[in-house]
């Protein structure tokens, strides 16, 4: 008593597909096609091949349909989306100061142990950022560190041309100067 009421009648495939299914029923019966079916099959088959060729031909004939964006040639016009995640960079204002206070939240939020925040005590004895080690070879650009940073100190840069010949050159130190004390 429960079965029928619950299942809403879902419409089967769109008409085209349904018609194909019906004709499929007949064609799976393999034994022998009558002569008319045999000729119809050759004719419709040949026509469907021509239609396929017409489509590829239309792509060949007008080069306007080419979608290739030639990478090295279009380097000047190629601009990433504002939210593109290339690699983590530290925001430096005009006189080279960054606003990282070595709180280590990004280090804990990162799933892959990519970021190592090394704090040091500056001349006045306060804890400031010493060295911000960022291992790009382990980073998966998941944006968790940037969401959790309370001071907006780090941001996702837009550069993607980072191929290198050896593994260690992918480890960056992001801060130019010690943190402000």
């Amino acid at each position, binding site marked *: 008593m429960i079965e029928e009421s619950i299942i809403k009648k879902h419409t089967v495939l769109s008409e085209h597909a349904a018609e194909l299914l019906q004709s499929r029923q007949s064609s799976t019966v393999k034994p022998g096609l009558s002569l008319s079916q045999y000729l119809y099959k*050759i004719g419709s088959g040949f026509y469907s*091949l021509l239609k*396929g*060729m017409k*489509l*590829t*031909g239309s*792509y*060949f004939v007008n*080069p306007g*349909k*080419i*979608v*290739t964006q*030639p990478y*090295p040639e279009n380097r000047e016009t190629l601009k990433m989306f504002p939210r593109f995640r290339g690699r983590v960079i530290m925001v430096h204002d005009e006189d080279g100061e960054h606003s990282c206070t070595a709180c280590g939240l990004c280090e804990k939020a990162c799933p892959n142990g990519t970021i190592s925040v090394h704090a040091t005590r500056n001349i006045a004895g306060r804890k400031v950022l010493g060295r911000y080690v960022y291992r790009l070879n382990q980073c998966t650009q998941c944006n968790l560190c940037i969401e959790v940073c309370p001071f907006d100190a780090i941001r996702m840069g837009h550069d993607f041309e980072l191929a290198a010949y050896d593994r260690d050159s992918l480890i960056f130190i992001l801060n130019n100067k010690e943190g402000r004390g």
Partner: protein
Amino acid sequence: MNDIAFPTTNAIGDLVRANFPASSAYIINGILGIAAVLITVALIPVFLVWMERKVAAHFQARLGPMRVGFHGTLQSVADGLKLLFKEVLKPAGADSFGFFLAPILPATASFLVMTIIPFDHHLQVTDLNGGVIYVIAISGLSVFGILLAGWSSNNKYSLLGAMRSGAQLISYEISLAIIMLLIVLVSGTASLREIVLSQQGTVLDWWIFKLPGLGLVAFIMYLISSTAELNRGPFDISEAESELTGGFTTEYSGISFSMFFLAEFVNMFVAGTLTTTFFLGGFLAPQIGLGTVDLLFDAVPGFVWFFLKTCFIIFLFMWFRWSFPRLRVDQLMELEWKVLLPINIIVLVLGAIFVAQGWILP
């Protein structure tokens, strides 16, 4: 009927005959002819590889090779050279004699067929009066190479690929032979040169249009079976990348693989030339009947028309390859034995009736 004066004389041949003794002149002419064929055969795959990749690219809405020379013209040169300097590996357990003999056979088969193709009135190495039978015999030779390659590289995938292509080539040779038989029947001669000359006159005298409906059907059947002969297009089941990883060429690397690669494209060129010779009036300029246009067409030398027609046929082969999915092995056999063969036999019989009634003056 066929000794009409043709503008281009056999200049080089006469020059050699003039200042060399008679016996050596024949040998020198032969060597020059063979050298000419070998040079064209060496240059043609270079052009065809580039053409295939650009045509495939434009079919697929992309640019294809661009950076290696102007619009990628040097791309096939780079491929050939790289393959030249690759290490040639022989898998353990492979029978070395068969393994290294196999790549040579398909290439030689296509070189041999090139010798009798009439590029122009006099641009032909030799003209056998049994040309068509020679073509059928020689094109059977490339099957050995593929079977030997498949068996001797001690790899299940290559064996599968070779068995498939063995069955495919043998069965499609039958429909190929029947259509060639039709052309011989209709044109009265078996020599390729005579077949071309029998299509003289306006465009309507080409065999494709001369026989009312028959010529077109025969042309389509010929295209289908020659694509199957080439292991290309919807019939590339022998080296189907997505099933058999590489088919019979799985274990070949470096220069031995490039021989197969070269043989495939030379075969494609040979299939194109044979189609133009049989159906599109070889090196004859298309005369449409308008006075001025005919003269203009006649001025263009024969072999240019020949190459234009062959390139169009090769473009058709490429169009097939990049538009259709692949057939399964048993569907391929079914297509040959249940569809192509009956139609070809009917076409042959109708052709015979036409000739018997005298409707076509051979």
